[in-house]
């Protein structure tokens, strides 16, 4: 054992009220610098898992620690990128990016410096005065990522952030996200439905099964960082995509469930 784990799930289960188990016996650890993706059928509880990690919802049983603290106590080390950009429409880009710092009482000068740094990172340094409705879907998502990064988090949680974007934009943002990570070095937990995205971004992929949500298996992606658009053409990358797709199909069953 070298470094202690940054995040540790030990037999974590979750149910809402008296409802059925959403997550059952989740156990895994993640080290600083990991990029962990969660992939699985709808309803496997992968978003719930991120919410537990963010301290937005308590675990029902088991133990979950972030940096040896409870998720609630570790809140300052976390930032979250939601499925929707969740920008405040009445604030311009600059004020949106500064919002979490404002909520935490960061001094205005420091806020502005952080804002400029992260907007440059997502290549929107010249759009600080724009309002969200003037931005494209991809730009809004980049503002949302910048807002999370402005807190200089140790851990970044991303809940299907690119799910609503077209393929091209998604690939560009994947590359951008990794490039930023090269400079910022946070640990990422990433929920997605896209096998290609999971393989491209992660060094570890946890495949989940549903009813209740369990970790089915772990697939490591030994491709070295930095990864670029050329990575997508490599033999190893395509093999991993095939592996993950196969496992995912076995989890989802031979036939897709009839549409309800």
């Amino acid at each position, binding site marked *: 054992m070298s470094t202690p784990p940054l995040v540790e799930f030990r037999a974590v289960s979750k149910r809402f009220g008296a409802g059925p188990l959403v997550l059952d016996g989740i156990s895994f650890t993640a080290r600083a610098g990991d990029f962990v993706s969660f992939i699985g059928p709808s309803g496997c509880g992968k978003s719930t898992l991120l919410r537990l990690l*963010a301290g*937005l919802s308590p675990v029902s049983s088991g133990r979950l620690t972030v940096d040896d603290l409870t998720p609630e106590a570790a*809140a300052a080390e976390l930032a*979250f990128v*939601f499925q*929707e950009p*969740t920008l*405040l*429409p*009445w*604030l*311009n880009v600059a004020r949106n990016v500064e*919002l*979490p710092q*404002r*909520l*935490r009482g960061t001094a205005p000068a420091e806020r502005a410096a952080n804002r400029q740094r992260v907007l440059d990172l997502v290549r929107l340094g010249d759009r600080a005065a724009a*309002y*969200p*409705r003037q931005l494209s879907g991809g730009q809004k998502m980049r503002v949302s990522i910048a807002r999370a990064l402005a807190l200089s988090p140790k851990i970044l949680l991303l809940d299907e952030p690119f799910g609503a974007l077209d393929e091209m934009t998604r690939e560009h943002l994947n590359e951008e996200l990794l490039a930023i990570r090269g400079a910022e070095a946070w640990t990422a937990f990433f929920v997605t439905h896209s096998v290609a995205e999971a393989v491209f971004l992660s060094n570890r992929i946890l495949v989940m099964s549903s009813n209740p949500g369990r970790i089915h298996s772990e697939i490591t992606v030994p491709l070295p960082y930095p990864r670029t658009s050329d990575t997508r053409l490599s033999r190893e990358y395509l093999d991993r995509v095939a592996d993950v797709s196969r496992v995912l199909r076995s989890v989802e069953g031979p036939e897709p469930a009839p549409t309800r």
Partner: protein
Amino acid sequence: MSRPLLKLFLPAFTGVIVIAVWYGVHFYLTEEMRFLLPSPGAVLQALIDNRDTLARATLNTTEGALLGFGLAVGVSLVLALLLSLSSLVRTSLYPYLMALQMTPLPVLAPICVIWVGAGLKSVALLTFVIAFFPLVVNTTQGLISADRHLVELFRLYRADRAQQLFLLRLPAALPYFFTGLRIAATLAPIGAVVADMNAGSSAGDGGGLGFQAVIYASQAKYPALFATAATTCVLGFVLNAAVIALAWIALHHWHDSYERTDP
């Protein structure tokens, strides 16, 4: 023709047709029946002849309308904040707010007169009663309708209640508030005129447009009565325009309803 020009020309054109038809009807009537619809020229003449009386009455009505309107805005904001706290509070209070709105103004007017006396105070109070319901309902709806994703974001970053109110709920409620304000701006001048008819007083030149309408009707000064009607219209238009301008200032940067779709 360019779009802005068309937007001026079309209503002006409608106006010309309305006046033409008005003249037509006026002269179609037999001489002894023409009092039913005085000609536009006679109404304009009455407006000029009675300008001092009408101006004073307009000022009095405007004062009552604005006082009631302002009171409605203030009270409805406080009440909306209270109502937005929980659905239990809303369930407890809504029926009584509605009851107040359901009671016709001419019934409330004598009660008002008993309490605060006839005149400006009564007019303002009755205008308040008329104007505040749409404000409180819309603002409350706005305060409880903040996007749940945004509420989640504020929770994630541990916003306290004050931050949630000032940075999220109040700005999110603004478009709803302005919807209420526009309805209230239409109701307030009407309310003030009706209140003036039922609870006004001419003591110390305090009579408003409602009072003046009653006087002109009783004296069979019909052109002056029509001139009074036109004046109340203008008053309503001005108040509405002011509210629309205010809404534009507050919302046009960011709200989708001000999005320009054409290039």
